[in-house]
């Protein structure tokens, strides 16, 4: 490494330039220049999506839900954007409830849905047909993810018969009744019904948006 302790013309010139560039005489940091990202209604949501991808924290997920809710209010008149936000909201809820067990494809879908939404929001003159096409592609990816999640969840109890027997042999859980296979099957059925209902609602919204456009 260079010995930077000896002053020479270059280092003196460099130090002077750095002093000039990074002079800290302003009382407080200036506000960032108004750019596209700062003026976009999605700028806050974008930060949160990035931070969730970096590290999943309860705070980030709460902020995510809040932002999606606020944006739904903001875009009440735009059905396509509402469907995108509905999908993002569902993904956020799923990440929050599953945390470490989140299906690995979830973040790919989340980022893709957000990127398409960002594209639509930042292109106000986008043709309705293009908007619908983008929405449809994301809906397909979302539905594919839901199917994968359902498959994985359905496979979990079946893949662990020994664990179920082992559980039955143990004393009942302190919370109350022991979990029986029937209860598990009921929970899975309930979950499937919930997913089906949610998908139906999203399909209705998508159709409604397509008709409106």
């Amino acid at each position, binding site marked *: *490494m*260079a010995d930077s302790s000896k002053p020479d013309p*270059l280092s003196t010139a460099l130090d002077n330039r*750095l002093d000039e560039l990074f002079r800290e005489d302003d009382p407080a940091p200036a506000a960032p220049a108004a750019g596209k990202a700062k003026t976009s209604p999605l700028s806050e949501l974008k930060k949160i999506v990035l931070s969730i991808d970096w590290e999943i924290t309860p705070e980030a997920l709460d902020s995510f839900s809040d932002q999606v809710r606020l944006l739904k209010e903001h875009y009440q008149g735009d059905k396509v954007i509402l469907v995108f936000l509905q999908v993002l909201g569902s993904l956020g809820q799923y990440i929050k409830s599953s945390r470490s067990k989140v299906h690995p494809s979830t973040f790919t879908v989340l*980022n893709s849905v957000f990127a398409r939404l960002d594209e639509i929001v930042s292109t106000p003159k986008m043709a309705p047909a293009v908007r619908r096409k983008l929405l449809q592609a994301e809906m397909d990816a979302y539905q594919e993810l839901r199917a994968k999640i359902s498959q994985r969840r359905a496979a979990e109890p079946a893949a662990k018969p020994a664990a179920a027997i082992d559980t039955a042999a143990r004393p009942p859980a302190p919370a109350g009744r022991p979990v029986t296979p029937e209860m598990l099957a009921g929970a899975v059925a309930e979950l499937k019904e919930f997913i089906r209902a949610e998908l139906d609602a999203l399909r209705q919204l998508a159709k409604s948006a397509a008709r409106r456009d």
Partner: protein
Amino acid sequence: MAFINLKSKIIQVKIVYYGPGRGGKTTNLEYIYRKFHQRINSEMVTVKTHGDRTLFFDFLPFDIGVINGYQIKIQLYTVPGQVKYNATRRLVLRGVDGIVFVADAMAVRREKNLQALKNLQENLASYKKNLHTIPWVIQYNKMDLADQGIPILDVELLERDINREFKRPAFPASAVKGTNVVATLKKIISMTVASIRKELL
């Protein structure tokens, strides 16, 4: 080795902010951008792509101007601190000229600092570089948290943990408040440019 175009007399210097997750690397860059963006006439960019690997880092390029006939362009990068992003960290370190190691002064993060330093050494080794030869400085960040009653490691202990072997310039700092953010930056730029110059001669 820095990107040097002798014909057009441009030297591009890559400086990477490295350290444990949530230690304040991005906050350093955000402060620099917020405070000086008009003077350095630049934009801070968060690069993020998905595919067969994940890349995620902050990037702040700016020109220093012409010094002794050479136009010097600085590129500041941060790397994700989380363990799972080691491939990204290694990738961002490719072609690095100078490093700011941002240590977290919170007492509970002591072990994380050591892990991050070890990880830095390992990743540098993959490029046949090491902390004894590359220009680098240390920043002990979050010193301001002591005012809030949060247990902070004192500088002597941090020096023993991180800098005993290397004896590098070190700055107690608060990236949130901007304390010593600029001093850290100026030092690493000076050291790195001096090192590049020595390699050129």
